[in-house]
């Protein structure tokens, strides 16, 4: 970090202390959930700049617009695509493929969730899948809890598999310059392994007891998935653009473009195709509706957070912390990788993984000289990505998707209790991190 540019005193305080305290207060307020996280992050960012810890220009430089663009573009694409009914189609189709057998449905819905989470953001995925799950489990006459539990796990595991699956990966990919393909090559095998291993205890605890009558299974088998597609023209447009975007991600490195450019270009193309032939007034209405589905709270949360972390980084505090960590791990790459993997998993189970990763990225970057340069940090990046994404499974507050499912379950009168979920989820998350540790050790250390 350019600590030589840093301001040394703020309001008579040492800038490092001021930024450190502001950072801790920000973190505590985000965790407390008493104030909306976007308000907390943007207010803290404003304080960083107003207090003079960083200049306005450096604050803007600190915002990772690649992450912001990628998130916004994908949210807009999903907002349009979901109107076609394709996600319900996929869920019902998968359900019928296993003859509406309860355990088979749980596996298929978990796989669909993991697949969609790898390509879309996790919150959107669970918002699409949880209602179909409730519909199917009600028709089957079985409890929704095991299904929703498995979907929470699948969304976080699936999200870990790709660059665009989970915000931590987007941030890491953008900060380190990792491509979509890098994530597929390095994270997909690990995520697949964790997914398979996680399903075994779920089967043992719930799956083997799931039963449904022939009549109820017939009700589900009678569902006409083709009728879920409510707009075939939109379906073709959406899937074509989505396929182009995925292809673009895969080729981004070759064509020298950032993922955000591809996602935003895809969103612009889909908006154009969706609105062709409409009158200007209707176009405005439609574009407004699409943009209103973009999660601006999340976007502004990111922007604020980037500024806060950049301010903290500019004081040199993170370099000091990194030095302490390296002292603790003896500068050993294996020990450091394991410390990051397990530390980020435990932390992500109890705090939001986005601020955690935003803070850890510069921390790891500053370890480069110890390990012989940035190119030797790869095990640490994969450890951070795996820990932060999979750690979200450790408790209900570990990831936004978990809370979304819990809220939905509560409204559906099938509540997911914090304690009961954590008692089952935390050990299962630890199992997943154990698998990830073996993977990281065998592949990179």
């Amino acid at each position, binding site marked *: 970090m350019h600590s030589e540019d840093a301001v040394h005193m703020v309001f008579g305080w040492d800038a490092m202390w001021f930024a450190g305290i502001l950072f801790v207060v920000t973190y505590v307020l985000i965790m407390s959930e008493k104030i909306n996280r976007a308000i907390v992050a943007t207010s803290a960012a404003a304080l960083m700049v107003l207090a003079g810890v960083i200049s306005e220009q450096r604050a803007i430089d600190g915002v990772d617009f690649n992450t912001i663009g990628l998130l916004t573009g994908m949210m807009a694409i999903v907002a349009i695509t979901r109107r076609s009914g394709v996600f319900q189609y996929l869920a019902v189709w998968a359900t019928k493929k296993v003859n509406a057998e309860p355990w088979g449905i749980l596996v298929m819905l978990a796989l669909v969730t993991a697949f969609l989470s790898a390509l879309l953001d996790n919150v959107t995925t669970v918002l699409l899948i949880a209602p*179909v799950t409730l519909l199917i489990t009600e028709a089957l006459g079985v409890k929704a809890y095991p299904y929703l539990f498995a979907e929470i796990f699948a969304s976080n595991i699936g999200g870990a598999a790709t660059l665009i699956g989970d915000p931590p990966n987007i941030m890491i990919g953008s900060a380190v310059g990792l491509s979509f393909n890098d994530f597929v090559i390095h994270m997909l095998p690990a995520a697949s392994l964790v997914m398979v291993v996680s399903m075994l205890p779920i089967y043992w605890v719930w799956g083997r007891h799931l039963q449904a009558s022939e009549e109820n299974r017939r009700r589900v088998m009678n569902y006409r998935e083709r009728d879920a597609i409510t707009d075939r023209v939109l379906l073709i447009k959406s899937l074509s653009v989505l396929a182009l975007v995925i292809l673009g991600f895969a080729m981004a490195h070759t064509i020298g473009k950032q993922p955000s450019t591809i996602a935003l270009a895809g969103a612009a193309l889909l908006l154009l195709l969706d609105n062709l032939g409409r009158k200007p007034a209707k176009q405005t209405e439609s574009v407004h509706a699409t943009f209103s589905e973009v999660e601006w709270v999340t976007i502004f949360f990111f922007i604020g957070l980037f500024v806060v972390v950049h301010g903290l980084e500019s004081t040199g505090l993170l370099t000091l912390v990194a030095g302490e960590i390296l002292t603790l791990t003896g500068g050993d790459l294996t020990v450091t990788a394991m410390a990051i993997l397990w530390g980020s998993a435990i932390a992500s189970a109890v705090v939001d993984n986005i601020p955690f990763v935003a803070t850890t990225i510069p921390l790891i970057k500053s370890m480069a000289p110890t390990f012989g340069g940035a190119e030797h940090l790869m095990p640490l990046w994969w450890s951070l990505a795996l820990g932060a994404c999979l750690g979200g499974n450790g408790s209900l507050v570990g990831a936004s998707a978990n809370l979304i499912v819990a809220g939905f379950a509560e409204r559906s009168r099938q509540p997911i209790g914090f304690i009961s979920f954590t008692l089952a989820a935390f050990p299962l998350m630890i199992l997943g991190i154990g698998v990830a540790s073996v993977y990281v050790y065998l592949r990179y250390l």
Partner: protein
Amino acid sequence: MMTASLVMDPHPSVLHAGDTVGQAVKLIMEHRYRNLPVVDEQGRYLGVFGINTLLRMVLPPAVVVEKGLTTAPFVTDGLHDLYLRLAAVEDRPILEFINEDAAVVTSDTPLVESLLVLYRTRTSVPVVEGEERRLVGMISYWDVGSHILEQGH
């Protein structure tokens, strides 16, 4: 000033807190009520229970829950499936299903404001009084209509 009390029915049919869904269904279907206020033993207003509540009960929960499915054209449930959902809850108390957030007016609410609430909620509106929210009447389209038409005589 003309208020809600001018156009309300001061003796509306009501459901009681202890009534079951089955009893409510019988009353609503017999008299073709759209919405009935629910009161406790002291006559305090608790919420409303109506034909829309019944419709909600017979539909799959996944389509009526907040942030649930917005469309479900692929679901092939028939009348018997809908009946089974209703039968499953007919012995349950209506209190579990009442709408506590339905718009209400007070007996002092100005006439136009009361009719505006009626216009926006598109169903009969309970009229309550005091901090205890004692039910004192209901405003329906028909009562309002007949009061307005009387002005021509």
